[in-house]
């Protein structure tokens, strides 16, 4: 694989699409739209994994793609939608940092990701390097989303986006062992987080989904 060839171009386009979707996640003002963007990102991830499976001739990546498609593009977004509808949550996004400001921060993070990966030259293939920059950007944007949104569901979305970035990186590295196991384990983590949010909301421990408000159980008498 080298620059200008089809496998590279497709992988690149898919990675770019994921980054774009990450930016959209940051940009959206409505919870429903955020969830849709997330589902889309899951779909793109599945496509990327499948493409890599095809290019690298690694059949296990198809499994990864399948799992990603099912879980991230379908099940989890559905569950989140259910959650939003069931609890009649505020449909607009509550931010700790304005949308504009978080976009700016996002751009800065992408620049940083590129800057960090830039010196990596010796030996590593250009493909992997570009992929890495994209995946790193997705990871960082996911984390940014986690810390700039007050809504627990949006934080879960951020975590999932972060995890999507991880899988993107994992499938992009040719010959990565245990890739299925690792991606599944990471997925389990995310699913459990979603489940925990679900559980907590049902139990009424979150009076609101603003995580800023549940911080008062310090266990230390004042």
């Amino acid at each position: 694989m080298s620059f200008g060839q089809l496998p590279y171009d497709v992988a690149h386009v898919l990675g770019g699409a994921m980054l774009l979707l990450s930016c959209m996640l940051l940009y959206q003002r409505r919870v429903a739209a955020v969830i849709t963007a997330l589902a889309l990102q899951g779909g793109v991830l599945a496509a990327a994994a499948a493409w890599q499976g095809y290019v690298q001739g690694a059949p296990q990546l198809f499994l990864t793609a399948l799992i990603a498609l099912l879980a991230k593009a379908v099940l989890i977004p559905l569950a989140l939608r259910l959650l939003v509808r069931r609890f009649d949550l505020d449909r607009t996004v509550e931010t700790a940092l304005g949308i504009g400001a978080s976009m700016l921060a996002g751009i800065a993070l992408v620049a940083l990701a590129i800057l960090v990966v830039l010196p990596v030259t010796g030996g590593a293939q250009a493909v992997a390097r570009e992929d890495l920059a994209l995946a790193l950007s997705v990871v960082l944007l996911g984390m940014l989303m986690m810390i700039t949104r007050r809504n627990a569901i949006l934080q879960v979305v951020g975590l999932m986006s972060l995890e999507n970035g991880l899988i993107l990186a994992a499938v992009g590295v040719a010959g990565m062992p245990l890739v299925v196991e690792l991606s599944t384990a990471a997925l389990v983590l995310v699913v459990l987080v979603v489940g925990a949010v679900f559980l907590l909301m049902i139990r009424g421990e979150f009076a609101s989904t603003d995580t800023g408000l549940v911080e008062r159980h310090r266990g230390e008498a004042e």
Partner: protein
Amino acid sequence: MPLPWITVFLPWLGAAILAAIPQERLAVRANVAISALGCLCTLGLVAVPGGEQGWTRIDALNLPLVILGGVIGLTTAIFSAGHVRAEGFDTLRLRGYHAAFQIFLGAQALALLADNLGVMWVAIEIATLASVTMVALHGTPAALEAAWKLFLLCGVGIALALFGTIILYLAAQPFVGHGDHGLSWVVLRGLAARCDPGLLNLAFVFLLVGYGTKAGLVPLHAWLPDAEAEGPVAITAVLSGLLLNAALHAVLRAKAIVGSNPGTIAPGHLLLGFGLASVLLAAFSLWRRRDARRFFAWSSIGHIGLAATAFGLGGLAGNLAGLLHMIGHSLSKSAVFFAVGHAAQRKGSQQIAAIGGLIASDPALGWGLAIAIAAVAGLPPFLLFASEFLLVMEAAARLPWLLAPLLVGLVVAAIAKIGVLQRLCLGAPTPDARPPGPGLTTLGPLWVHLGLCLLLGLGLPGPLRALFDAAARIPG
């Protein structure tokens, strides 16, 4: 099946059994029995020739930590046997509690023994999930919040660690070809010198931040005090004593790989910075604590910081100091948690003000706690005294400016600990909320840990010396 595998799977098998036992008496005994078997297994590892067994590998660095895990697992199970009743669990929770405990023990053993970094990552994730379960078990708002904090922060942390692992493989990928051994620690370490230093740097940053979160290094520590203070009293000992060790061990493995490439920015200095921040922040945070278990949780942050500082300094003596410090911390801190947990159950509150005069009301417990806190504060003749001494020696020799923050941290923290020691142990006893439980399940583990600390601090047996010496060479 090789013995290391048994060491991992035995507790997991036990967890399955325990999850099925509804009777409390039986479950408690089974828990102790399984832990004892696990402890025997870890001791048996001494006889296993070092090297690779499938995806596990025994070397001098993980062997003492695994044995430590076995021993503390056993003592904690014994302590738990006497104290689980007072937690007031229903049957379901009791089953979950015991199962999670054993899963945790198995996972931390796996995290230490794994040769494959991917396996290690999975093990740490399992340990995290098990500890989240244990912390949340009480279901009180405080416990849920602590568990949620632990879950989310550590979840993000280990996600970052996975990213680091992937980058590490990416760096090594041109040289390993295909196959599962591409994530083997030994292979990676051997290849590191040829890898791209830029990628290694990147990988180390992610691994450090990721596993560092699990190890409770400042500023990634926020989950630790609450998690250690809110769970059932018994599990605090393993959370503080074993989970942190496993995470720091993972950081060390990463440092060993990255450090063996001369082109990288020195990973030791990053670790040193985190360590120093932990030591200083913990030292000053201790002063405002009113909750006894949170107090000692903060002290754990300080101790892990000291160990990180020592490993950051590196070199034989630095690594030896760090290793000894980890072991000393695990033994003495869990001893403290046994005594504090017992006292907290008895007094019906874990506020420092509610626990007082233990020496007057129960000399064996009071003195044991007093000596254990003194050991934690670095007073002789226990292991932490030796390790801190060695650390100071090494700092003076290598980075003399380090002495100033180190001494401030050590002294400020130690004085705060003395204050709490006196408030817990001296003075007139505070009233009991409930009749004291069986003392022996507290006193036994407590004094055994103190004895071990003393033995390791002053009379380390020759073979162990050789083992530690070899272990100190591994992180580089």
